């Protein structure tokens, strides 16, 4: 870990002011990902601004019937909120499918969105990685790729986004709200929040350098039966090989998003309309243009089969 300085902000405004004042500063909230990365010197912030006590930790009803989730609401608190459990079951299920109880007690809503890939090569500073060092090359391509992406990847990076929560947020059409030191705020649709790697895999989100996420807003509930099905080698505490978030209405229509296969939560709106036709039709639309490796080609069929499981469960219940 490199030496860094530390301060604790008391308000969101103090936080963005401190950020503007200190080049190379990073916010820290739960620290469940950032601290690990600092130990390996994959992240080397010179200054940390602790935003753990700036508020933004409540879940509030919005006038239109949705929910505004404070950026610092803990994953555990979000997963167990009665409104979330009742109306946004997919979000609650995605959250409890992730990490462990201890980590969810620390991890925050905005931190979860901003967590970085778990690609093994990203985690080994001896290996070239375009995310860590733009232009260095990618050791993962041609290497051990079973866990890595099959779609939305590029010649520069085939890493996946590891979040479960973000997949549900994408399915629910959440909006990320930010502020900056000039008092400006932005509303970023979740679809636009995470970037595909293209030639610049180190740029992972559309967050500007001076911005702080203040909340994530959910539109009014859409009803339906809500599923989060996470497929993994062990029963708990593992990143998804494939995960499927879905809302299926009584009439058989619905929407679907997929995790574990792409650099961002993967949703193709055109696939939603295929749901009544069944899993193969949905998967064909979702995965058009997929470019898996030999090691992770199974994910193509696993997506389809997991969709089939979800659709079957929706029908059965």
């Amino acid at each position, binding site marked *: 870990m490199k030496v860094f300085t530390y301060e604790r902000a008391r308000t969101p405004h103090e936080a963005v002011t401190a950020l503007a004042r200190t080049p190379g500063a990073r916010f820290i909230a739960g620290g469940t990902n950032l601290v690990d990365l600092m130990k390996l010197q994959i992240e080397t912030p010179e200054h940390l601004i602790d935003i753990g006590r700036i508020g933004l930790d409540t879940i509030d009803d919005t006038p239109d019937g949705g929910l505004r989730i404070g950026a610092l609401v803990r994953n555990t608190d979000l997963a167990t909120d009665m409104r979330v459990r009742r109306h946004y079951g997919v979000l609650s299920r995605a959250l409890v499918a992730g990490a462990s109880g201890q980590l969810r007690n620390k991890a925050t809503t905005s931190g979860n969105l901003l967590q970085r890939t778990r690609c*093994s090569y990203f985690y080994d500073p001896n290996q070239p990685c375009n995310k860590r060092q733009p232009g260095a090359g990618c050791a993962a391509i041609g290497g051990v790729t079973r866990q890595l992406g099959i779609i939305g990847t590029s010649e520069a990076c085939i890493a996946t986004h590891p979040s479960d929560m973000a997949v549900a947020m994408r399915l629910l059409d959440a909006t990320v709200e930010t502020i900056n030191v000039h008092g400006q705020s932005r509303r970023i649709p979740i679809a636009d929040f995470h970037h595909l790697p293209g030639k610049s895999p180190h740029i992972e989100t559309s967050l500007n350098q001076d911005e702080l996420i203040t909340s994530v807003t959910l539109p009014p509930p859409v009803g339906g039966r809500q599923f989060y099905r996470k497929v993994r*080698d*062990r*029963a708990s505490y593992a990143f998804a090989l494939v995960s499927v978030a879905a809302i299926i209405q009584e009439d058989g229509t619905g929407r679907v998003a997929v995790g574990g296969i792409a650099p961002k939560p993967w949703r193709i709106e055109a696939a939603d309309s295929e749901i009544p036709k069944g899993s193969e039709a949905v998967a064909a639309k979702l995965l058009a243009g997929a470019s898996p490796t030999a090691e992770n080609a199974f994910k193509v069929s696993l997506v389809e089969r997991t969709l089939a499981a979800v659709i079957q469960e929706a029908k059965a219940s």
Partner: protein
Amino acid sequence: MKFDRAAGQNPIDQLHVVGHPLDRIDGRLKTTGTAPYAYERHDVVPHQAYGYIIGSAFAKGRITRMDVAHAKAAPGVLAIVTTLDMPALKNGPMNTAKLFGGPDITHYHQATAIVVAETFEQARAAAALIETEYDHDEGQFDLKQAQHAARPVQGANGSRADRVGDFERAFSASATRLDETYTTPDQTHAMMEPHATLAAWEGEKLTLWTSNQMIAWNRRDIATALGLSKENVRVDSPYIGGGFGGKLFLRSDAVLAALGAKAAGRPVKVALTRPFIMNNTTHRSATIQRIRIGTDRDGRITAIAHESTSGNLPHGRPEAAIDQTKLLYAGANRLTAMRLAVLDLPEGNAMRAPGEASGLMALEIAMDEMAERLRMDPVRFRILNDTQVDPEKLGRPFSQRHLVECLEHGAEKFGWSRRNPRPASVREGEWLIGMGVAAGFRNNLLTKSGARVRLDSQGIVTVETDMTDIGTGTYTILAQTAAEMMGVCIDQVRVILGDSDFPVSAGSGGQWGANNSAAGVYAACVKLRENVAEKLGLPPAEAQFSGGNVHVGNSVFPLGQAAHESELVAEDTIEYADVDKRYQQSTFASHFVEVGVNGFTGEVRIRRMLAVCSAGRILNPKTARSQVIGAMTMGAGAALMEELAVDTRRGFFVNHDLAGYEVPVHADIPHQDVIFLDEVDPLSSPMKAKGVGELGLCGVAAAIANAVYNATGVRVRDYPVTLDKHLAHLPRMT
């Protein structure tokens, strides 16, 4: 004490204390976090500094230059030692990878420097400032490619294979045949406590407070590496947070703590980081195993061959995956052989049940496949091919062999008769349900073991031996042994372990620890009993020890009275003559498993597990059960998830942390039943006990793989059995 014939009646047979499921005497320390592990020995020496080790960033070649100027100038840095500062250190006899010294790099994350600083973070930050330049060499990292150049490993008679009868002829003449190839991946021990050492010098005398299974080996090897006399080295390792064979040997933490302490003129402590452990230390080597079995029309094995190929660094040893096949089943015509390829990966060496664990993963699938070809129940097929003698030397019996009882008893307890022999025919909702069985087998090794026992005037008995407790329950069973022998309660016994100042024991490894080290304590106690009798003026043969007293006829003396004037001390070593040559000593088990395989996703989840073990006298059923359920859990990992993923271009294990290298979590493990057959083995030692800690692992993975096959009808012969290997062939859910 020389053990040269079957043990007769002795005080252990009273079973007042031995054989009872007592709680661990060190349990409170463990559960309250107050047992001091190596990195926590804050009180043993003042002014401790922190060391941080860096390793090679590439797999093979040599270092041309190391620039430590920036690191040396970093805050808090006390000393830096690099591998260019000295020639290559000498290895001990059990190891091949270089631990430190010289420019040559033979594997990824080979230690290249230690930075010593006032704090851990200062040391780690400074270590990142060392600049290293390399010349790379091409390496071979792919066992599948390298197997073609693999060399035969000499068999017992210096031949390329061990043969009995004429395998080829018998195999081609057999009525039913199987010829299949199986693979097992590289695995890492993944013990909870990382390798850690605190080192301090007093002149030429070195003390290591460390985490090591084999104190005497560690002492010998650090003396060899640093050119010290053994007498100038003390090793202390009272608590060990798991080893599984990964801590049998001297590793870089101890070597570099010692070198760092010398350079800094301060005690230095070092713990290996998790990402470093997988590539810096040892691992269980991957294998490619070809098995051929031929039977007659009745299903009796007439020909059996097991050939295994593994890889290692030059001068390394093979993974002896053929070992159990020499002894487990009958058959007149036999062939076993190993080949060893040179790989430039980290050193392959012992991991829990080396040899048998990997070998049974293959053999016991092969037996399942063969039973299916014969349309025979797999339990019955194994029973039919049982042998009561060493099948390579028919005049040599087993000391005890109850494999058939393990299988029969297990089948009954598990409800094996409810298994549908037709694969993929049992469904519960989305889940395909299957049952599997495998035999377990692991040899019982006899090795000499010493101990010292002390008696004070309060009647307190103190046991001292360099034996270790790696989480197995050694403290408790040695206390039970001494209590039984001296006729006292277990809370009258103190046990001090892991100190090289104490008599040399068997150490912990190869499941030889419990039987041999307890027998060592037994031997010392026999001497102490004689001393006590003599001190009290009693005829030794007539003295009875019980209830804290010594009895002869109607006379009763408090035990402590014998030490009234001064403490009594006795020391002895159990040594074995040739009983294990005359009798094959092995332990046996049956493993039964039920799994569910999700018909949509292919995920495998274990639903029930049962092990029935035959391992001589069980010294403490509670700690023994803990050993076996831990081993069954490890077997679940081996079956379903554990694999060090090799980057065959860059030559390293890629998934080098516990996020990438998955081991079972609680949610993976269902109810586990363990049954020990009630038996004693008088040929194993005066304790009449054998090992169980490795037996519990042997066969588990194959039982799971066989259950998966029974569930799905898809045979996977490459471990781990992950969903991608059967997904495409699963029956379509409707």
